[in-house]
């Protein structure tokens, strides 16, 4: 006869998902995610009780200078493996994402590491993410905003010569009557809060972890 698992058993599995995500070990994270589901944990429970806290801890360790890009990257990849299992299940429940985020590297720039780390952390934070890729012209941002009606648009640029593309992209959104409906974030190595303010962006984040936190704050979900 099948006995109902105890809370201790469930906690042990969720602790395992959390720890292995922090260590960036993709295989055990996937295996334990399946085990948690088999024990009857809801998909959203795995997400909110283990994976999101793990990525929040990764973000905290990164901001504290304890984690660096390699550690953050493998943690995020480990989480992605679990998300591959959970996403379709969560979609079936009709649960709404925390928010929607359209992301792209601006026209003339194909640097993608910073953007990709933001994508992974945002998805891990419960956002629906639409990645437009790199070298994205203003009209593609406009079309994506029209189609997906996101809460946020994120623009990434790595070079002092490509950050001037932020403004025309924002202007194009304004011309299409879409600027008011979204919050715009800008980021990338040469970008500063001062620059973001100067061009009238709604937000700036120096790294992926801060971006997720600020977005949640803006939505009142922090």
């Amino acid at each position, binding site marked *: 006869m099948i006995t109902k698992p105890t809370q201790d058993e469930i906690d042990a599995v969720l602790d395992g998902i959390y720890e292995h995500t922090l260590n*960036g070990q993709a295989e055990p994270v996937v295996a334990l995610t399946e085990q948690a589901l088999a024990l009857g944990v809801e998909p959203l429970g795995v997400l909110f009780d283990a994976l999101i806290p793990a990525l929040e801890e990764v973000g905290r360790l990164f901001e504290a200078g*304890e984690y*660096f890009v390699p550690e953050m990257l493998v943690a995020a990849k480990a989480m992605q493996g679990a998300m591959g299992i959970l996403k379709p299940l969560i979609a079936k429940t009709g649960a709404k994402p925390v928010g929607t985020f359209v992301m792209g590297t601006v026209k003339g720039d*194909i640097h993608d590491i910073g953007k990709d780390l933001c994508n992974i952390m945002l998805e891990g934070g419960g956002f629906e993410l639409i990645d437009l890729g790199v070298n994205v012209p203003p009209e593609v941002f406009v079309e994506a905003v029209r189609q997906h009606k996101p809460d946020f648009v994120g623009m990434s640029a790595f070079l*002092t010569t490509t950050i001037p593309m932020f403004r025309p992209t924002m202007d194009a959104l304004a011309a299409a009557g879409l600027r008011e409906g979204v919050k715009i974030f800008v980021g990338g190595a040469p970008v500063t809060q001062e620059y973001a303010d100067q061009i009238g962006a709604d937000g700036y984040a120096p790294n992926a972890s801060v971006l997720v936190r600020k977005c949640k704050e803006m939505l009142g979900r922090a």
Partner: protein
Amino acid sequence: MNPRQRFNAVVNHREPDRVPIDWGRHVGSIHRAGYVGLKHHLGDEELRNEDAVLDRMVQNVYPDEKLLRKFNVDFRWLEPHWVGVQEVEGEDAYIDMWGIKWVKMLNSYSLYQSPLAEAAIPDLDTFPWPDPYNPAIWAGLGERARWLHENTDYVIVADSIKGGLLTKALQICGYMRFFSALAGELDFAEAVLDKLLWLYKEMWSGYMAEVGPYVQMVYFTDDIGAQNNMLISPPLFRRLLKPRLAALFDHIKGLGDVKLSYHTDGSVTPVIQDIVEMGVDILNPIQTSAMGMDTYWMKEEFGDRLVFHGAIDVQQMLPFSTPGQVRYDVAKRIWDLGRGGGYILSTCHDIGEDVPPENVLAMFAAAWEYGNYPLDLASVLKPEDLHPLASKPDLAQQKAPIERRVRPKR
């Protein structure tokens, strides 16, 4: 003092007659569009070299000798050649000797495809690595070095064979692949680094056999810093890169009577002592726009062991300042880093096409005007910059390990 005597004083931590000025290397020249702008601004249509591309990736150019003299540049650089470059048909793109594909975006080339993105350790044995003995890499450089040595007083520098251990590993494996390896597949990471270490050693042997007798300085580039902290953790740097870079620098310095300038962009404050221990004589470029790279603190802390090379920021300061602000920044860097000698003034990287020509002229003019010893900047600098409190950067990476939190329970 002539430039070589000046350099000699600086690298031996003695006061020279003036702060030497450097410009014109593969990560410290000027973008061709900026060069054209400068040429028009100067109204000198005879200025040559706007098509003389120095580094294809960043599209900078060799500044005209006339300009190097106008700006009182003390250094002349030898540039290893690009060999084995394949053009990609139908695209503005090329594949370099490492098999890495670069595509043109706006005004420079960006990394597009890495040949070892899917590789495992056995693939490293079968991969077509570049031939480290290909004499075309340094063809003609020995002759130019000897000529410069016999006919001029300039400091002659052997520029880097582009790319270092970590930089090249990231490019050839792809950033995602190699960063992931650094967090969990150290065997693979070490195998790649060992291969690169061997290749660079062999290449430098051939290079120095040509130019060694004539050069006073060698330059090696390998970025370990990012904007707000290091690319990898200090412990990992110490374990993986420090011993290999130390071995390479020992090898290179054994090939001639040279001082070694090591280039890393970004924030590297937690490992500057390690850099000293690797046998580095000169640290470049002191990216002052990166976190914690406080020039006054750095001189106080490491000025007896390191010479500083660079510190004129091209990311924030030069593009976004007025000429007056540029002059002030130059004075501040000379004061911070040049007290007692030990400073070579240079741009941290290329002068981009977004830098106004007025700022380029202001920088070189201020370097000439303020760089005379004994330094007399009392009437130029504000009191708080003349006597700053060394603002020790927040060395978060050096703090005691931060305890991990356990999973919060609902």
